[in-house]
């Protein structure tokens, strides 16, 4: 057991005891040593179930959506990426900040590839921070996209074709994504021409492309889509492409920060480039 975990449990215990929150979303151990799962703690006696270690990788923010209409606050343990997910959901008008109590957890020990390019290891918003802030690191978020761009069009097509040929359309990437918060996803709707339900490469590609466009200007780069993909499709390589373009065209752009900046597709400037035309 580590210091932070102890402190985290104490904090949660206190929050439940003084009725600040109705319950807290955190992580708990599983029967696998290297896996944790989301835990929903509503009884202060249960706080010892909470764990904090390098296996606490699942994103928690979206679980709060189940409580969109509830009374009273809920607590969420937020790492950098979780806090940005919360920001995302607040910006997308899906959550109200005042209904949330955010327990910030600086995060520097995860061993996933996706975390190498993390630029916000400390929560960007929180109500209280457990542990000391960690050092932020510089990272080239778009290095992989650059490599892709260097390939020929046909190479790129083959790359995505072979990836999407594996897709089983489980929609896990959508379900975990904090930017995917439509009440009725276009992919679930029974409309002719909207999104074919067939599981073939063409339809999978259409799904991939459309999802990318739908979330690309709001992606918080948590990488959950890639983590949950059972077929190992590098999903975020698509959204990061869009983010790279946005960064190049409209200046530094990171989503899910409490800076009040509108998604680029929700605004325009008279001087936007025409050069693609």
């Amino acid at each position, binding site marked *: 057991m580590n210091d932070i975990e102890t402190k985290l449990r104490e904090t949660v215990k206190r929050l439940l005891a003084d009725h600040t929150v109705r319950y807290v979303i955190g992580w708990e151990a599983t029967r696998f040593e290297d896996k944790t799962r989301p835990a929903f703690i509503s009884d202060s006696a249960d706080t010892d179930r909470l764990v904090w270690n390098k296996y606490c990788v699942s994103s928690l923010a979206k679980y709060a959506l189940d409580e969109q209409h509830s009374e009273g606050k809920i607590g969420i343990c937020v790492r950098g990426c979780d806090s940005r997910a919360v920001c995302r959901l607040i910006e997308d008008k899906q959550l109200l900040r005042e209904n949330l109590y955010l327990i910030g957890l600086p995060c520097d020990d995860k061993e996933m590839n996706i975390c190498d390019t993390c630029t916000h290891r400390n929560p960007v918003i929180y109500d209280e921070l457990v542990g000391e802030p960690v050092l932020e690191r510089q990272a080239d978020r778009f290095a992989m996209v650059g490599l892709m761009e260097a390939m020929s069009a*046909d190479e790129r097509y083959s790359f995505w074709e072979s990836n999407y040929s594996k897709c089983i359309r489980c929609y896990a990437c959508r379900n975990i994504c904090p930017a995917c918060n439509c009440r009725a996803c276009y992919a679930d709707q029974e409309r002719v021409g909207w999104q074919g339900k067939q599981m073939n490469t063409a339809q999978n590609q259409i799904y991939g492309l459309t999802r990318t466009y739908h979330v690309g200007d709001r992606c918080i780069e948590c990488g959950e889509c890639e983590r949950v993909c059972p077929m190992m499709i590098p999903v975020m390589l698509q959204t990061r492409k869009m983010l790279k373009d946005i960064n190049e065209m409209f200046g530094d752009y990171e989503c899910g920060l409490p800076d009040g900046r509108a998604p680029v597709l929700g605004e*325009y400037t008279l001087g936007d480039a025409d050069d693609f035309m």
Partner: protein
Amino acid sequence: MSVNIKEGWEPKILAFCCNWCTYTGADLAGLNRMKYPENVRVARVPCSSRVNPQFVIRAFQKGCDGVLVCGCHPGDCHYVTGNYFTRRRFMLMKKLLEYNGIDPNRFQARWISGSEAAKFRDTVTRVSEQIKELGPNVKFREGRWS
């Protein structure tokens, strides 16, 4: 992915044209009896901003060889600001399509005003030539191609 181009193959090109500028420009090209290739089919929309980028993907999937989105020049939008949104949406969409392996010439956007009949003719002619050169689109296509 190589396809044998059928004898006499003609590309199918879909053009989304806004009612107030480009569609009017296309009508004017007709009034002036300008000539251009037959392979462009115009779908009329009130404003280029009505075009959901999904329509473009759908068109490729269903077998279009090229897609054009045309609207009023910036500042001239009948609905004041629509084309500024169009510009952003399709700027990003075009890059995304390219990233996914679609040739940049297959999806193009243009500003054509109601008086620019010649520009409409030239655009359509040029796009048609470019797509002919590229051959039938097989990327993203459904069923019989994949």
